[in-house]
């Protein structure tokens, strides 16, 4: 057994730009993710967070570098991680319930069984009465909840969440946070979490990566040594505030630098 659940080694990505020249979008990135950790990634918009997740989940080919899970090389392989993309990507021709059980269906679990498993979750997270609606009939927040539930139902050891709570109202967001922590705790998942909310990142995580602007590399790797389980009130504790200020300063430094660079060049 390796010390780390997942390792990213020198991962980078170059897109072909509109003018035909290569555009460096990400990296090189080095990360060592221990097992059962809750890791947040924060960075300026456009720095390559979604690109990084696409690469980890095997959906986009790396331009360089390698990814190892449990010591095995996995870059380019799918099905290793559970991944909630930034767009909700619900299949428009399926009901919400059928969308949520998609991962189970693909694994070969009988539909009936899968539905029985999914329904309580739908009820719990405010989608009751919408099981048999189609995605177009739902509000933005509801769609995002459905997409998150689909990822959670697809029960993988490593879960990648790209801004899962972006469109949720504060109350639902708080409930989902608690529930995600429970889930992570109960099932011993390793979670990678992209958010724009530093408070959320620190509150949830064991480690926070702060990325530089494009091409995104790791600018700062913060360890969050707050005791667990954490109560929501923790955000007013001095230790929390100190961590948050430190992190925000780093991030804003980076964003400023980026804006200056762009305005200058």
């Amino acid at each position, binding site marked *: 057994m390796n010390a780390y659940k997942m390792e990213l080694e020198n991962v980078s990505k170059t897109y072909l730009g509109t003018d035909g020249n290569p555009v460096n979008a990400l990296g090189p990135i080095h990360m060592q993710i221990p097992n059962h950790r809750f890791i947040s990634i924060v960075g300026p918009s456009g720095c390559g967070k979604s690109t990084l997740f696409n690469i980890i989940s095997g*959906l986009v080919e790396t331009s360089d570098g390698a990814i190892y899970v449990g010591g095995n090389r996995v870059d380019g392989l*799918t*099905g290793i991680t559970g991944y909630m*993309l930034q767009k909700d990507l619900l*299949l428009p021709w399926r009901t919400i319930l059928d969308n949520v059980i*998609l991962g189970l*269906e693909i694994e070969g679990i009988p539909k009936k069984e899968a539905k029985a498993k999914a329904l309580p979750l739908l009820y719990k997270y405010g989608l009751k009465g919408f099981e048999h609606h189609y995605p177009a009939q739902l509000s933005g927040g509801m769609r995002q909840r459905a997409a998150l539930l689909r990822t959670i139902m*697809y029960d993988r050891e490593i879960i990648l969440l790209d801004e899962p709570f972006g469109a949720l109202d504060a109350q639902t967001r708080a409930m989902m946070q608690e529930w995600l922590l429970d889930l992570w705790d109960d099932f011993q998942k390793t979670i990678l979490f992209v958010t724009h909310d530093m408070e959320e990142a620190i509150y949830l995580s064991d480690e926070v990566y702060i990325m530089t602007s494009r091409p995104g590399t790791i600018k700062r790797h913060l360890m969050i040594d707050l005791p667990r389980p954490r109560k929501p009130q923790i955000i007013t504790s001095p230790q929390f505030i100190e961590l948050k200020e430190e992190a925000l300063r780093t991030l804003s430094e980076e964003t400023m630098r980026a804006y200056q660079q762009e305005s200058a060049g």
Partner: protein
Amino acid sequence: MSHEAEAVSSRGGGISAGIKTPRPKSNWLKHEMAVPKPWAVNVGRFALFIIMLLLWEIGARSGLINSFFWSQPVEIARTWWIGVQTGAVWQDTLYTFRSTVIGFVLGTLGGTLLGLSFWWSKYYARISEPFIIMFEAMPKLALAPIIVLVFGIGIGSKIAMGFAITVVITTLTTYNGVRSVDKDLVRMVYSLGASRMQVFRKVIVPTAIPAMISALRINIGLALTGAIVGEYIGSERGLGRMIFYAGQTYEISLIWANIFNLSILSMLLYVLIGKLESLLLKGFMHQK
């Protein structure tokens, strides 16, 4: 703001006045939301049809339209009525109907399967392309001797024509549908560890279905054309044979009478396809 000033009606007093003024509407809302009333549509169609016939008849009688080449509605109606009395109309229509429907079903199914199969290998798809085009380019009518050889002189050759004419277009349409799939949806399903077969079943096929459904309307017309061409090549019965015969003997009114029958048949087929289409759309795509 000039926009506002132009568009809105003045209300006079404040809200408290409580006078309900007629609700103003923007043009586009009326348009995008309104579904034309079926009766109005039918009245419009019928009126247009009658007007066209009247103009034709008047033109023919006044000599503006040469009725030797164009015939004229009254004459056509008379010819048509003879067909009804002798029962030829029903027999011919039924004959053509049968070969059309069989050709349509086979061609649509075949083309759909072929088009979908192209998703599995771009290499295979690219290699097949010119051969499909070649097949499409062959003038079916000119191949009559060989068609008779392969499919016989019975209903087989008519079905084969309907098939040949629909299968290529269905293939191309389906393949276009397959290629228009949202790449992100495909990625998402792969990210759930799906096999290619699962991506195919759960994303590609449902995505291609609207394209396939939209091909149905076009196909039924083409299958009919195919059946007609098949009847030209050789037949005992059928609307196409009648039209062909009328052309040979210069009975223009008989041509039109049979074209009329053909239109009725094709309208009937379109209505049936329309029903099938909305059933499928409801079943697969949950659209109205």
